[in-house]
């Protein structure tokens, strides 16, 4: 339990450190806002349209593939941890599991999902 208490302390103090810096800066910095200063900068021109628009679907597809392989990694970690005591049987099973996933990657590759344009 106290092992993870350290993590909690680090998270809280990390947030605290940043907030403290913001506060300190807030106390000593100048504040002269005006509309022109607060406008968004894009090549010295007023931006055309908002930036919250549809984005390239490639990002989404890469995220999907990432989720698949990240889940694979989550499965691989406990396996790798006890691998030496389980021996050949566990190794063959994992080869099959990884093989299926690599086949999936090959499929995505051939489908052109890994191309970026």
């Amino acid at each position, binding site marked *: 339990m106290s092992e993870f208490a350290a993590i909690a302390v680090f998270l809280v103090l*990390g947030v605290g450190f940043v907030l403290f810096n913001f506060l300190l800066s807030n106390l000593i910095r100048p504040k002269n806002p005006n509309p022109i200063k607060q406008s968004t900068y894009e090549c010295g021109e007023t931006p055309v349209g908002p930036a919250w628009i549809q984005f390239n679907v490639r990002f989404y597809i890469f995220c999907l593939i990432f989720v698949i392989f990240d889940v694979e990694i989550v499965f691989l970690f406990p396996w*790798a941890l006890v691998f030496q005591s389980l021996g050949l049987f566990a*190794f063959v099973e994992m080869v099959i599991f990884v093989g299926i996933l690599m086949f999936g990657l090959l499929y995505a590759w051939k489908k052109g999902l890994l191309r970026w344009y």
Partner: protein
Amino acid sequence: MLELDKLIGFVGAQIAALVTALGLGPDWVTLVQLVVAALTLIGFASVMVLGLVYAERKVSAHIQMRVGPMRVGWHGILQTLADAVKLLQKEDITPSNVDRAIYFWAPIVTFVAAFAVYAVIPFGRGLVVTDLNIGILYILAITTFGVIGLLMAGWSSNNKYSLLGGFRSAAQVVSYEVPMALAVIGVVMLTQTLSMVQIVGQQEKFYQWYVWRQPIGFLIYFVAATAEVNRTPFDLPEADSELVAGFVTEYSGMKFAMFFLAEFLNMFTVAAIGTTLFFGGWNGPVLPSWMWFLIKTLAGVFVLMWMRWTYPRLRVDQLMGFAWKFLLPLAILNILITGLFVVLF
């Protein structure tokens, strides 16, 4: 000689005595000790980042046959301190059309994700705040949270450069996360433990370093880690020549400083993990253990700086293709080879 664990033990005992004298229980003792440890590491991290920024500027300068900062202090050694004070005094310009809450929290998330890792890094013999039994898994998990900070920054700024920078950064970091974690698995298969301290403990002698048994794994880790921290040749999220400054374009003053701090903390972190996993951590002759750790880690950081002025930047398609079509199959292959060796020998 010069080992810090005795000092840490002494300070810890003093804190325990003080807190107990105030009439509080053992839980409070642990809490106060942890708070003091965390504050110490915040101090260490801040000073180290000041040093690294100075080093980055000096290394860059000398590689380009310039001299770099020379005016503030001896050979400009106080330059970054002056810069930090300047950033503290800078007006905080928040554009009027940003998503305020997300804009405010993005630097906090990024910094905390970079800083929380320091709880499990073994800086020397006995110099670790908490030796989690899932140490390396925890590091992989928590550093990925930094991506959320970058995405928050890119999205909330309501600026197309920021948005593109944020998305590119997220795509890049998640893509290289996979080969990096697979490279770590290669080491875990040999160590049979996830605890950082135990991994270091297994590499006492020079020939026991895991880099000798996991050369492919190390190369994959090195490339993926460089991409994880957005360094050249993988610095597309901050490609100055096309995206102004990427996701930090709309940030100024202390908020910008927090992103900067997180970036350099991450650089130190990946070098520290590399040292721990592949180069024997704090093990070494003669010098105290923490000094060995710092020497190895800073050497790693120096290589990252050196590469910045050696290689050109990749294109986005090359970058993504390299992660998925080359590094990922290679990492899987590395795991299979490692497994085969362990099973057969």
